[in-house]
């Protein structure tokens, strides 16, 4: 059977709003970021690895982490890309503005990478291993946007 007209039903605007719990570890991180522009990781009592974002469990050792350590704010680019294609941002429902620098930052003193924007004023300077520092937002609300982006230094 073939239909003369293949109809489509749109469900635009029927999203499901959520209140995601940040948790005790993340809340401590964002409070410190908001109030003191400081960045925290958690340190594994067994392997000594420092995790950012901070979290309760070291997946490698399956032990609980309770020690917070300050990291950064400076660090290096672990890896990166520059996003050039348009897509719908599920957080806003709008098209995400491109291009933007997408980086994995290794804060000084951390063992894992932290995802954030990298300023792309001068693309030629964006390289793996390049040193960066965060640009803090003047109005900080206790979320990941309290850092505007990372910019290349030195």
């Amino acid at each position: 059977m073939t239909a003369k007209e293949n109809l489509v039903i749109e469900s635009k605007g029927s999203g499901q709003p959520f209140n995601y719990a940040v948790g005790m570890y993340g809340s401590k991180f964002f409070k410190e970021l908001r109030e003191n522009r400081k960045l925290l990781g958690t340190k594994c009592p067994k392997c000594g690895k420092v995790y950012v974002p901070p979290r309760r469990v070291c997946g490698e050792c399956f032990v609980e982490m309770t020690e917070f350590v300050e990291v950064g704010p400076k660090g290096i680019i672990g890896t990166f890309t520059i996003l050039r294609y348009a897509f719908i941002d599920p957080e806003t429902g709008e098209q995400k503005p491109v291009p933007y620098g997408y980086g994995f930052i290794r804060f000084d003193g951390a063992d894992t990478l932290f995802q954030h924007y990298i300023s792309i004023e001068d693309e030629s300077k964006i390289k793996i291993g390049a040193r960066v520092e965060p640009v803090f937002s003047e109005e900080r609300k206790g979320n990941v946007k309290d850092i505007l982006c990372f910019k290349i230094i030195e």
Partner: protein
Amino acid sequence: MDRAAVIGVGITKIEANKVKETFADMVWEAVNKALEDAKMTIDDIDNVVTTSNDFWDGRTISCMAVGDASGARHKNVSCVEGDGTFGAFYGLSRVLSGSYGTTLVTAHSKGSESVSSLITNAAFDPIYDRSLGMDMISACAMQARAYMHRTGTTPEQMAMVSVKNHGNAMLNPLSQLPMNITVEDVLGSEMISDPLHKLDCSPVSDGCCAVIIANEKRASQYGSLPVWIKGVSFCSDSYFLGDRELSKAKSLTQAAKKAFSMAQISDPLSEIDVAEVYDAFTYQELMWLEAMGLCQDGKAGINLEKGYYGIKGKLPVNPSGGLLSGHPVIAGGLIRIAEIVKQLRGEAGAYQIAGAKKGVAHGVNGLCGQSHCVWILDQEK
């Protein structure tokens, strides 16, 4: 079926809003409780099955959030999306296949983070049903009406389920809604979707459960008391509500028959000592009991009036307080399994059923009980 057992269980406290905790935090707590209960360490776990739902968690690939907390970093791991009884079934299969000696099964959800009616609305067909604004409660209200019409079950009898289960919850420290209430309180509570009052409905809840399943050889190796799995079966009915005989649960009847037959139980009513069934709504406890063959069709309400289903009754049902006293979706069915395990070990504390030897646990997937999973557990090998 080859022999296998549940050798460890862990349940978090069930709460309306665990705002301090992420999914991983809840899983970490339940997993560590289960490991401690089984007298095991994570190194004794051969593989992991997590159970979650991307809609309830507001996240595609919801299992990603709980990998580290369930100790899955260097292990084979998979994820079932559905009720925890289905996750446990897959975990059991992975043991019986001979691939692994032990499986850690987890199930979590946080109803507090979303708008439940929007999440269950998304379970309706996007082409035919969804725009009508249906959700789980309105669909189940129609089912309740059909069940009442067919069987003559009364609003008072339904209310008695709520009274009994909230009362049982007074004895369960993990329960969210322990309440000393009366039939009048239930019938006087807000009408949510006729004929379901607020106290006919389970609450929105956060919680997590973890269960450890082992093959026969490993089951007795760690020193906890194994509870043996004698029969498990699951079955799905048609999808569209209009395609089903909504007042009956045909797929549950089939799943239960198969599970009882695997367990070589010919007269469930006389052989089963305790049941934990998926009482998301009051009428469902009655309807599921009948469909499972634990009660003559249409007679559950009358039996309830006679006190059959109380903690000291002929067949205690939901002595833990059931889902009416705390309903973390997805974890709901796995908690039923864990509660039966506690009963058969004699570790259920204030709501212990004296002399319980055989029990049934039950989980549900989909709208109005489309798909059911039935577990028969036994104290003896």
